[in-house]
């Protein structure tokens, strides 16, 4: 595009450019690659929840896997000690709880010789035992150690691990093993670790997202096309006022009125449960209200670029406005309608707040609301990251494919729409 003279070292320059770009691209894309790999990796827990007096194996993830599986799980001693330190350093005192026996609890101040002795003993043990940094060896040895140690010490060590925060901090390890287990969990909804009674119908979430975003996109584009046509082609009373109102309203996203929307749906729910809180239809309506003003503005701009002479000639020939709209205008504006549909589909697919406010029951959630539970629920992230990765891979697929296939159109829509305001 620029007619510049090529310098003496154009090749070197180009190569350098490519190297820099590839480097940046790698840095940028590394997280995506990591997620892709995490999806086919199993995240393992080293220590389990509050089961007994000493750190034992997480029942959720270990009981079903065999010894061989276990031995593939690697954690370095140093890492273990680091984590141990981190687990106990934040605490001003340890709660030492005899969980099994009497339920008595005593406190040992962090920094007191007692606590230091316990810590030292433990570290010493980790350092002195196990070769090749094998975590399983550590665990095996630890079991033996457990038999030789006085009950009191065992309790102390055990309970240090098993203050709730500590137990979780000590639990994470990657299993460097290829597995489709996470995808299996995604499609069956069964086998999510630490799930208790929670339900994870992830396929349903995915379908919900598609249904909600899809119906919003379709209805929106129909409604928008009709309204934009009139606003672009006809003069009538209140047109300017209407346009002004639309222009003003599209400034405010629905997020800001979430309280009112929630209460509105609460009220509508009394009229009919179909429209109320925890209903997909209610969410669809709310999304529609949020997107239509902006889209009307966007599409109307495109309508304006199409010469009126086209339909005027049609109308002279006796066509009604409806016929003119259907047969002449609609085919011409197809590109912008497609872009609007895709953009609003992507937009609603991504929407989180209103869905979070409105949807309640596990079966009705959309992807963002549901998947949040894998990362943001206390203590769950470590064991569930693999499933999250698998789910987000499946969840992102339609959007990413859409993007890559139609990127030129989407980009034109993005820039065009944004410039318009």
């Amino acid at each position, binding site marked *: 595009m620029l007619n510049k003279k090529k310098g003496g070292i154009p090749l070197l320059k180009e190569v350098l450019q490519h190297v820099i770009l590839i480097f940046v691209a790698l840095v940028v894309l590394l997280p995506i690659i990591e997620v892709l790999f995490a999806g086919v990796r199993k995240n393992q827990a080293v220590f389990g929840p509050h089961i007994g007096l000493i750190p034992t194996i997480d029942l959720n993830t270990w009981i079903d896997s065999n010894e061989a599986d276990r031995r593939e799980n690697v954690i370095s001693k140093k890492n273990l000690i680091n984590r141990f330190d981190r687990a106990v350093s934040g605490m001003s005192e340890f709660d030492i709880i005899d969980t099994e026996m009497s339920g008595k609890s005593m406190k040992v101040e962090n920094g007191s010789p007692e606590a230091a002795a316990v810590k030292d003993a433990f570290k010493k043990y980790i350092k002195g035992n196990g070769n090749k940094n094998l975590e399983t060896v550590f665990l095996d040895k630890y079991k033996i150690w457990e038999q030789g140690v006085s009950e009191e010490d065992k309790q102390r060590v055990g309970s240090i691990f098993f203050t709730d925060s500590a137990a979780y901090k000590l639990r994470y390890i990657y299993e460097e093993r290829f597995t489709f287990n996470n995808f299996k969990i995604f499609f069956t909804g069964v086998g999510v670790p630490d799930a208790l009674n929670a339900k994870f119908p992830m396929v349903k979430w995915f379908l919900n997202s598609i249904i909600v975003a899809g119906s919003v996109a379709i209805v929106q584009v129909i409604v928008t096309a009709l309204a934009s046509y009139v606003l672009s082609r006809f003069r009538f009373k209140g047109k300017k006022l209407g346009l002004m109102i639309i222009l003003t309203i599209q400034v405010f996203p629905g997020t800001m009125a979430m309280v009112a929307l929630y209460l509105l749906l609460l009220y509508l729910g009394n009229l009919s449960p179909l429209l109320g809180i925890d209903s997909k239809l209610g969410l669809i*309506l709310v999304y529609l209200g949020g997107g239509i003003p902006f889209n009307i503005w966007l599409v109307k701009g495109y309508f304006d670029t199409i010469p009126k002479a086209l339909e005027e000639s049609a109308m002279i020939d006796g066509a009604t*406005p409806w016929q003119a709209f259907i047969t002449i205008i609609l085919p011409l504006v197809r590109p912008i309608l497609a872009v609007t549909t895709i953009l609003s589909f992507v937009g609603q697919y991504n929407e989180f707040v209103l869905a979070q406010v409105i949807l309640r029951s596990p079966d009705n959630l959309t992807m963002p609301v549901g998947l949040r539970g894998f990362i943001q629920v206390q203590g769950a992230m470590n064991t569930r990251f693999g499933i999250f990765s698998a789910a*987000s891979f499946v969840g992102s697929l339609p959007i990413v494919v859409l993007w890559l296939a139609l990127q030129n159109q989407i980009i034109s829509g993005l820039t065009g729409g944004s410039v318009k305001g």
Partner: protein
Amino acid sequence: MNGVSDKFTPDKKVKSSGIGKIIATAIFVILGALLIYLIYDKFHKLLVPFFIVLGIGFILMSIWVKGLYIYRYMLPAILIILIFTVYPIFYTVYIAFTNYGTGHLMTLDDARTEVLTGKWDVDGSVLPLYAEFYAPKDKIDNFISNWKAKKNDAIENVKEIKSDFIKKNSKNSDLADDDIELVAAEKNKWYDEVEPGIIKSLDKIKKSEFLAIVFTKDKVVIDAEGKIIDKIETNDGDIEYTESVPDTAEPAAGGDAATENVQEAEPVKTLIYLAKYDNEKNSYVLTEIGLDDIKKYVGDMVRISDKVLYTEDELSASESEESAYDSDTDEFYNTNYMITFGDFSDFENGLKEKCPIELNGGSYLKGVGNEFMKKKRSFALKDGKMYKLTMINETESDYTTEVYEDKKTGKFVTTVDGSPLKHWNEYKLDGMNFVYGTFDISANTEAESFLNDKMANEGLNEKVVIEGIDNVINKDITTVNAGDLNTVKANILKANKYISEFNSKLAKFKKEYITAKKEENKSLNLEQAQIVKDKKVQIVELNKRLALVKREPAGYNRYMDIKDLNNQIVQLKNENKQTLKEIKARNLMLDNFKMPKLSKFKIKVIDVSNTDYENPIEPGFFAHVGFHNFTKIFTSKTLTAPFMRVFVWTVIWSAVSVITSFAMGLMLALVFNAGDLKGKFLYRTLFILPYAIPSFVSVLMWGGFLNDDFGVVNLALKLDIPWLLDPSGIMPKISCLLVNLWLGFPYMMIISLGALQSIDSSMYEAADVDGASKFQQFRLITLPLLLITLGPMLVGSFAFAFNNFGGIYLLTMGRPVMDAGVLPGHTDILISFTYKLAFGENETDYGLASAIAIIVFFIIGTITFLQFKFTNTFKEVDNA
């Protein structure tokens, strides 16, 4: 055909006549007035139906009226925008001026009205705390006819019993037939008397009225037999049942002993209301009716059992085993013809269809209360104070009882709740003793010892003891009766009387102490005054000497003498000043001397608006509070500082995230744009990927990566950086910005690329000719031109980031917390703060959330207005 096409010709202006304009104006005025009325009055309840009606009208109009054909196209858009966009905005504004949220308790009257007019589930999942019974006239009629039948049976019974009685006592020659006749006649007489009353009373219940019997926490005691009574043990040891008017504040005869026996019976407290249908208000209005008044409506039913009760004297002659004898109460009664309050069961069974509530004892009330609380109904604010119902504790052992007095009615109520309340020391009743904390005179040891001596002499050192409180505390709410509470009140009155006496004695001590002290001080003062006097004389003499010395010839000695004398004079003067100060202070101390005082016991309305509860009440009713929410944001001690921090962070977040992602996007765009780079399309695709992935996935993914303990960033790079949980909040903020940079730069790259390509390349050629460097070209040509094109979009991005809830909340949830007890966290932006206020785990406050949303509205509105001005968007509307 011609006519039709004429009509539908585009751009034809429809002319309207003058009359049409007037009508249209009138319609708009009416609609406006209606809207204003709705906003002020029943906005939330009527607006949706209003819109529905409006919408249907609109649809019909646009279908049937040919001139409105244009609106047919716009109809769906208009309806959706009105209901789901315009209405919520208005409603947000409306809520911002209310106290809509949890923590509101409606007043008792409101609660009752709600109970009566609200929708209650038939399956019993929704039940009011005030278990209410109500029935339309026919139900009462049924009951009364049943009652009449029973009464007739009873009369028959009386006759039978009379004959039995006569038969059985015939052996007993001492008992005259006349006496027996007399007893029986007494019974019959009562029925004869009562009957007309009942019938008469029924006439008073109009068709539109019904009777409501309201069960509540306080007031009346009914014993197992259904009588509304206070049991009072007289001095003789006899038990008398008296109809009590439980509203009387003073305890009956000697509160000490009155409270012993009552808990034997299973009491149920009853409030009785008459619900009248108010045509104007279109709802039922409850008026409380007294025990005496209820007879007007249901007859003397309550008294029936009184009358059938035999005292021992009455039946002393009877040795019959068939007559029941209650050894506990030492009474005889005949079960056969007792018509008790329990006969309401017919009445109730009839009512169950309408209102499925059982009439039962205390456990039932507890259940009902808790059911009610589970439903979490809430309550409006009326007298400036917030009230809140608390869950009634199910466990018997672990609760504390507070006694308080209802301001409105002046009646006692107890609460049973484990949570300590704010005004604890003002009314906490701790066992038998009232532990009093303010009696502290250690500040003045002399006065203290004086006071201690005095108090020891007068025997005042003992603690204030309130008797009989044990009867009130350690009791469940349902078993505390008016008698006990009145006893407490009497005891508190007694204690207060004692305290006043004590205080007056203290005042007397104070006087004594002060006079004694003054006497003591007098001599000291005189002494010191004398010293001052003496020193003054000395000063005069020194001055004289000074004058003499000054006349001497100049020299070292003269200089030294003058200096010496001056020093002496100053010292003396200072000493005098000091002494005078001492005297003054001594007098002043006595003038302002304060003796400690006992303050009186207070029984007050518990203000629990700031206490925390396990079960938050969901909002129900609300009141208009004007600008209270806004003033709260800017003046509240606990809210203003966090709000300002959140606000500042929101602005920083929006600005920095736009600038950084724009910078990176522009950089990449420049690289792509420079010359013929091979594989441009591939690179662009790669760099768009972060934008193509659904943003919730990427934000959550980063949340996982940056996890402080398990995140791959810390693990893989062997770092120990608290990305998301740094308590100071700096690292989490940086994390938010970094993640947003990763998310946002592709978009900026795309739009920059578009804008760059639109720049005329001849400019660069000209610049090359002029010898401008590449950087100069960028600075002087590219950037200004880019900013002109992209400026509005950057402003738009700023506005978007301002509300980018997901970008923050999905990453950090607003954490880490700023301070204990402060709702917003370090990384919260205004919109997520709003979310937390409205839908957070703690108490919700829709009013405040809406107020903050309105502030955001204003900010966004201003920004966008400027943007529109800048891009001439308004002109587009004008040209349309």
